[in-house]
């Protein structure tokens, strides 16, 4: 070790002496998994509010039939960007942030396997979103053809088009590098004795998620590249006149798109599987079956993509295959729900905020799973496709599913990260407002969809008014309740009652053996695993 710039060099006796660098450069140059985790989480929080504001524009416009708040083109930009921001900017980075903070601590590693690439993965994100969101101010506005980017519609986008495609490329690069880092960390940096089947479930679900990411993000990159060349270089991938097919885009897109939804839910399964045992004060029921269920879900997610395309025109054999394959996913998913419930069965339960969010997750995610099952029935989907029923379905799995799990994780590990307890009363208030808000917001959308209200439309027939009004009220309730979360997080970072090392009475795992907050460099030597 010869150069003078060794800020993270560790000698023998002063392992924990090296704190972080000071000022802004700490955050820009950091290779520390905790710093990078924090950056990811804060970025995700910011995007959650940006995407949330867009959602409120959508719901404000849909409060009444007719056009009142925004013009239809802007409405379409909002639906498109809301989805892109929430998926790539809020949910995915939140889980990567959790992975960064937790996986090294959970497996007894000193840091992520490739710390510099880790910095790169993060910092690409704000720049990618600058590119994406700048399109709102361009001639022709932002992308407005839906987050699924279907041609030929998306090819009519104005100046925004290449910006959107290249922003997607950047996000993809970031995700792939993040995933490679996570896989390498899990496979290579586990402390001696931390066998695969001893890993906490959060680590397992992330291992499998990282595999999914590396497998499908390049496919997204490939297909958006085809869009780009179709628009600018005269190729005919999605042009029937040249022998291509717009439907081909849908196949390639959903080959990415369906695994992508599991990328957003598997880490959530992991979080919930950490939290429920703690507050039920019982070990997780069926650990091994959880691992196998996660792996089966990941496998199945590669062979169900065309359930998004039942109405587009497919041979009958295709419709049947994708229908049954999709239904099969309900089996491993059911195993998981069963295991969570069994973990709680006869447990000595307490209901702190993380547990409340986790229980709401189990119930409300299951509702989303059931509506998914309804959509999986091809003949029924002919009716539901592109209606608000689909919107209700994916919001149940994504908001009280993925997002609630992120909230639960934030409350659960915040004391560990900051060394302070959050305000429990405020947390509970946030929970109850959120859980009521989210159901008022999304439950009526099932009825709207079954009654035939199409999605991605700024105006609607009169008979849909009441349910839309209810839904909008729920949206504003849910949206503004998140300010309590923001306030609580800020207050917890700044101060509060000291957290103990274990924080939660029933918490088990390596991260709870460390001080709260843990030292800047956690394990400089490998910990003992029992």
């Amino acid at each position, binding site marked *: 070790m010869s150069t003078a710039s060794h800020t*993270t060099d560790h000698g023998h006796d002063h392992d924990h002496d090296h704190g972080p660098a000071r000022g802004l450069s700490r955050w820009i140059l950091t290779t520390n998994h905790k710093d990078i985790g924090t950056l990811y989480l804060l970025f995700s929080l910011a995007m959650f509010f940006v995407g949330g504001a867009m959602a409120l524009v959508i719901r404000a416009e849909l409060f009444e039939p007719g056009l009142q708040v925004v013009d239809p083109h802007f409405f379409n930009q909002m639906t498109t960007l809301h989805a892109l921001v929430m998926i790539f900017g809020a949910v995915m980075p939140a889980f990567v942030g959790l992975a960064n903070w937790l996986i090294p601590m959970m497996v007894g590693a000193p840091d992520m396997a490739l710390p510099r690439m880790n910095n*790169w993965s993060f910092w*690409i994100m704000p720049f990618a979103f600058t590119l994406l969101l700048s399109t709102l101010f361009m001639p022709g506005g932002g992308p407005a053809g839906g987050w699924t980017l279907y041609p030929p519609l998306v090819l009519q986008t104005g100046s925004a088009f290449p910006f959107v495609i290249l922003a997607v*490329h950047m996000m993809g690069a970031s995700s792939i590098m993040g995933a490679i880092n996570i896989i390498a960390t899990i496979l290579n940096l586990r402390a001696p004795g931390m066998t695969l089947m001893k890993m906490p479930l959060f680590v397992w679900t992330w291992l499998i998620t990282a595999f999914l990411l590396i497998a499908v993000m*390049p496919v997204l990159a490939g297909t958006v590249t085809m869009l780009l060349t179709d628009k600018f270089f005269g190729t005919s*991938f999605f042009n029937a006149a040249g022998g291509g097919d717009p439907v081909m885009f849908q196949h390639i897109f959903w080959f990415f798109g369906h695994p992508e939804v599991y990328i957003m839910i598997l880490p959530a399964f992991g979080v919930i599987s950490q939290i429920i045992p703690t507050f039920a004060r019982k070990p997780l029921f069926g650990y091994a079956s959880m691992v196998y269920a996660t792996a089966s879900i990941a496998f199945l997610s590669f062979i169900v993509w065309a359930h998004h395309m039942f109405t587009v025109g497919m041979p009958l054999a295709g419709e049947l295959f994708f229908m049954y394959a999709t239904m099969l996913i309900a089996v491993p998913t059911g195993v998981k729900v069963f295991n969570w419930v069994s973990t709680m069965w006869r447990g000595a339960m307490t209901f702190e905020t993380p547990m409340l969010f986790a229980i709401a997750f189990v119930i409300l995610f299951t509702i989303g799973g059931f509506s998914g099952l309804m959509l999986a029935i091809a003949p029924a989907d002919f009716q539901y496709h592109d209606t608000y029923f689909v919107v209700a379905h994916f919001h149940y799995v994504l908001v009280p599913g993925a997002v609630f799990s992120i909230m639960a994780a934030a409350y659960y590990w915040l004391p560990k990260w900051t060394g302070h307890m959050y305000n429990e009363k405020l947390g509970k208030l946030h929970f109850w407002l959120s859980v009521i808000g989210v159901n008022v917001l999304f439950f009526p959308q099932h009825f709207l969809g079954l009654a035939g209200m199409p999605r991605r439309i700024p105006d609607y027939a009169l008979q849909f008014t009441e349910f839309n009004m209810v839904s909008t009220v729920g949206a504003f309730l849910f949206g503004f309740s998140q300010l309590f979360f923001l306030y609580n997080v800020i207050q917890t970072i700044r101060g509060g009652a000291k957290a103990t090392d274990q924080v939660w009475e029933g918490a088990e795992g390596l991260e709870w053996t460390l001080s709260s907050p843990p030292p800047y460099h956690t394990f400089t*030597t*490998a910990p003992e695993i029992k």
Partner: protein
Amino acid sequence: MTHAEHAPDHYYVPTQSHWPIIATISLFTLMLGGATLLNGGSSTLLLTGFALILITMFGWFGTVVRESEKGLYSDQMDRSFRWGMGWFIFSEVMFFAAFFGALFYARTYSVPWLGGETSHGVLTHGLLWSGYEAAWPTNGPSDIGGFFAPMHPWGLPAINTLILLSSGATLTWAHWGLIEQNRPQLLKGLAATVALGVLFLSLQAYEYAHAYHALHLTLGSGIYGSTFFMLTGFHGLHVTIGAIILAVMLFRSLAGHFTPQRHFAFEAAAWYWHFVDVVWLGLFIFVYWL
């Protein structure tokens, strides 16, 4: 090769570096420049971004090479690099898979359907293009890009296949040289591999010129031109990158880097080259031949 100051039970964590943030800014400049150019703007930003990326690569890889030569990296770090490279190559495989998927889909579904096969094509075929007969290669019912002749597999493409396959062999030979500490064999093998790579690229450039001028086969020649040029083009790009990496390995070998025990950079380059090789076999079979 654990450094003396490193107690073996201590983890090694690389130090902080400026390169990642410089890489981010370079990438951003490149993307911003690309989008600007596509929208009809100037190419300055794109070229700047490109230059920045090159500087970043020199700087970042240079740092890593220096650190590695100092023996800073532990065995564990070495394994992390291995996992990293392996999964990176897997992601590249999936990128090509998207384009192969497009080729297979067009050949098995969209083109036959446009020709009226099965109930799917009946309407499109009957209403829009009843005169179209499905065949491969095709530029579609509207004859997009005009008449063209397809690329014949048993001329240059077959020679290129031989070239790439032999380059795989010379590279393995070089690797044996490295392991057996036979320096001349290492250097000769690497130089031959790079030379074969360059030869491959020159022949491909010639083939492209031939396609555009003599065969009237262009990127705009319907679905055949699209899949042909995008697949072979991305492959060619990867050969270029691979050849540059191997050239760097050659210079490093000349500089006396690598030991029979520790030469992961060389192995990574070799993995990458073999991956590019395998992709070519897929291309030769499915794009040129069948």
